[in-house]
């Protein structure tokens, strides 16, 4: 046997030695046509496709909205109730997923802008709009890792327990009159209950991970949420007592007729209750400065330290769904829901705009403030927020008692206060937009300055 027979003759020096030889594939027929087309139009077509990807994306969005409208208006009434329910739930699921996806992308853009960065810019060609989709793709591909000593069934169950209630909350949230899956008489209670169940998944995940960091995260989440549910509920009780209904549709409908009839501007106690509710809602959906359960500088990643891949995505989705849900409740109860600031233009669009604004404020707060310590969180709740919300409830009830034609003097005073609060609200909004305009005008200042003055030698 000649062992050297298979060895190729040595390449003489000077010639390329490590060039891989490509297998030559011969294309015939249809595949030839496709390759020819691809080589001819690919270099133009694919960049064009990417260039207008955002346009295609928004066109698809418009199409989906139109589809939902047509189905809801004309086709749904013809369907049997169970098919109708399935269609609406699927639509809600799509909406909620889009909320989470846009929320995650928006958080990255917002944090980027606040930190004089750009945030994602490449994925999907228009300001990185496809970043969350790319992230999701990455997460799906990841290995599904469960720690060896973890309580495996609980570990698997926990993300669902966190995600499903967060979605269920949307079943009772009205986007407009008639734009609600189930108009319950106790809609508000249902939403609050669903949002409170989410903590169960977090505690379950933290315990099942069998990691001390996760356990700490779960413990913190438990005590934080249980404490802040009370001021959150009490702030809402003040509003509910004012309008006398627990049905979210009724609460929204009662605030029809311009921004001055929104509950926020009815009396100073309700005005304050909006802010106490907002603070408590930050704590209840683990947003900064109350993000202790996942505070990455203390507990590595808190309750989801051991989670990876799609299970982690579920916790992530649950958080963003929760963010939008608490904002939606604030919108319906305090900010007039789907009612427009000027009477007569009520639309679900207003509801989405107001809720998105509140979500954006949550992000703004997150990227500005440091985290509070656990004992300070508890002190703030028990010593200040809880008595304060009780006071608000009592104050609002007394105000309601005297704000009627029987007490002429107080009624006049109340009208003046209401007018002042309305002006204050307008002023705050004006200040916000003035600041936003100033920021937009100077948007390139910091980054641009650095680029301009970059040293030539460097």
């Amino acid at each position, binding site marked *: 046997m000649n062992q050297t027979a298979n060895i190729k003759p040595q390449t003489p020096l000077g010639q390329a030695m490590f060039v891989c030889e490509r297998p030559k594939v011969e294309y015939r027929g249809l595949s030839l046509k496709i390759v020819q087309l691809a080589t001819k139009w690919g270099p133009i077509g694919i960049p064009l496709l990417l260039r207008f990807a955002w346009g295609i994306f928004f066109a698809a969005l418009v199409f989906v909205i139109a589809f939902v409208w047509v189905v809801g208006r004309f086709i749904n009434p013809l369907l049997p109730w169970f098919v109708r329910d399935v269609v609406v739930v699927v639509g809600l699921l799509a909406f909620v997923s889009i909320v989470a996806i846009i929320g995650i992308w928006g958080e990255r853009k917002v944090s980027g802008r606040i930190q004089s960065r750009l945030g994602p810019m490449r994925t999907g060609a228009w300001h990185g709009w496809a970043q969350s989709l790319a992230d999701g793709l990455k997460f799906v591909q990841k290995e599904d890792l469960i720690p060896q000593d973890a309580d495996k069934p609980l570990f698997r169950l926990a993300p669902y327990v966190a995600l499903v209630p967060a979605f269920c909350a949307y079943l009772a949230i009205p986007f407009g009159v008639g734009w609600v899956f189930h108009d319950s008489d106790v809609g508000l209670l249902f939403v609050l209950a669903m949002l409170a169940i989410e903590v169960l998944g977090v505690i379950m995940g933290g315990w099942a991970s069998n990691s001390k960091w996760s356990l700490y995260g779960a413990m913190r989440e438990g005590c934080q949420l249980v404490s802040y549910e009370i001021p959150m509920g009490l702030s809402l009780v003040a509003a509910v007592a004012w309008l006398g209904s627990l049905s979210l549709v009724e609460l929204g409908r009662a605030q029809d007729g311009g921004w001055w009839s929104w509950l926020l501007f009815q009396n100073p106690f309700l005005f304050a209750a909006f802010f106490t509710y907002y603070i408590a809602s930050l704590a209840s959906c683990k947003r900064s400065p109350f993000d202790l359960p996942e505070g990455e500088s203390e*507990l590595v990643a808190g309750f989801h330290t051991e989670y990876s891949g799609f299970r982690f995505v579920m916790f992530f989705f649950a958080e963003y769904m929760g963010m939008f849900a608490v904002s939606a409740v604030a919108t319906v109860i305090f900010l007039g829901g789907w009612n427009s600031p000027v009477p007569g233009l009520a639309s679900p669009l207003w509801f989405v705009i107001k809720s998105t604004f509140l979500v954006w404020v949550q992000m703004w707060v997150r990227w500005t403030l440091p*985290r509070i*310590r656990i004992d300070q969180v508890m002190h703030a709740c028990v010593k200040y927020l809880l008595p304060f919300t009780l006071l608000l409830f009592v104050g609002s009830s007394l105000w309601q008692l005297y704000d009627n034609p029987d007490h002429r003097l107080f009624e006049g005073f109340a009208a003046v206060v209401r007018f002042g609060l309305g002006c204050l609200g307008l002023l705050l909004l004006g200040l916000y937009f003035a600041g936003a305009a100033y920021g937009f005008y100077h948007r390139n200042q910091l980054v641009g300055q650095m680029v301009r003055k970059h040293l030539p030698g460097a």
Partner: protein
Amino acid sequence: MKEIELQYRHPPDLLDDGEIPSDIRTEELVLNMGPQHPSTHGVLRVVLQTDGELVLGATPYMGYLHRCAEKIAEKVTYRQFTPYTDRLDYLAAMNNNLGFALAVEKLGGIEVPPRADYLRVIFAELNRIASHLMATGSYGLDMGAFTPLVYCFREREWIMDLFEAACGARLTYSYITIGGVREDVPEGWGDKCREFLDYFEPKIAEYNDLLSFNHIFINRTGNVGICPPELAVAYGLTGPCLRGSGLAWDLRKATPYCRYHELDFDIPVGHGENGAVGDCWDRYFVRVQEMVQSVRIIRQALDKLADGPVQAKVPRVVKLPAGEVYYEVENPRGQLGFHLVSDGGTSPYRLKIRGPSFCNLSVLPVLAPNCLLADIAALLGSIDVVMGEVDR
């Protein structure tokens, strides 16, 4: 005995009600923080004994980044060891270079030209600003505020550019060498430096608004990890940790080297404005104030910078007379000391390095008990250790 302890822990009336069973087992939870942990600033491992959120004790374990720098020094020539000093405290490489160069120059009796001296001051202070920016920014991160970190990196980037223009490197410079600096700064570098100072000085107020005087930040850091001056001296704390305890001790004033005695600056100390003297906030704020002082120093040094050589006549292979010297300089993190023993050869007989981070870290087990878990991050961040220097 056990029964008595348990009864003491739980009031008898509760036990009688049967609400808490008397045989309930309570024990400490040992928590292993690090070596991979976001807020241990490198590969530090701290073993915490905790009771719920309360920390009962903390024991730091180091050695994960040991690279035998001191032993290597005995095998390479004096010039060749300069790049190894870069790797000690990699956030303040210029200051490390300076300390080693000064120690060698003192033993060898080498005179440094004035221009080189002022350049050394400028670069050491610029690096102090860069290091403190990193410290303050990452302290914000430890407290859960991500944004100040990015702002600090933005400013630090400019300093890195200045360094790169002068010596080509952005982290490990080896710029300050034995006998002076490696080469003169390029044309117009001084103007660029002034431009940076003009840009940077107002930014400090911005950080104060965003972080230093933030109510939450003060609540998190004030009255936490209080280190009284006696304790600071007893544990050999130096740098901002010592000055945060209210002692105005700075080697640049006490035993001036280079040309620090010709320059006018103050030593910021902690006053306990938001709690007791020597708490985390004081240590943090001393760093912020030191950046202001560094800007002052650089301005004066730039004014005094005259033309001239930047390198003394030193042979390529430095040979020091037999003897020993101990030289300390004021690094951003404290006093960096080089104990150099020469037997008359071309490499040190022994080189002992006193890393300030190592000594500062030693106080952690004293300050940690009775803190909350979140305070450990605050404590570690305010001590501001660089593990490259702790382990050497």
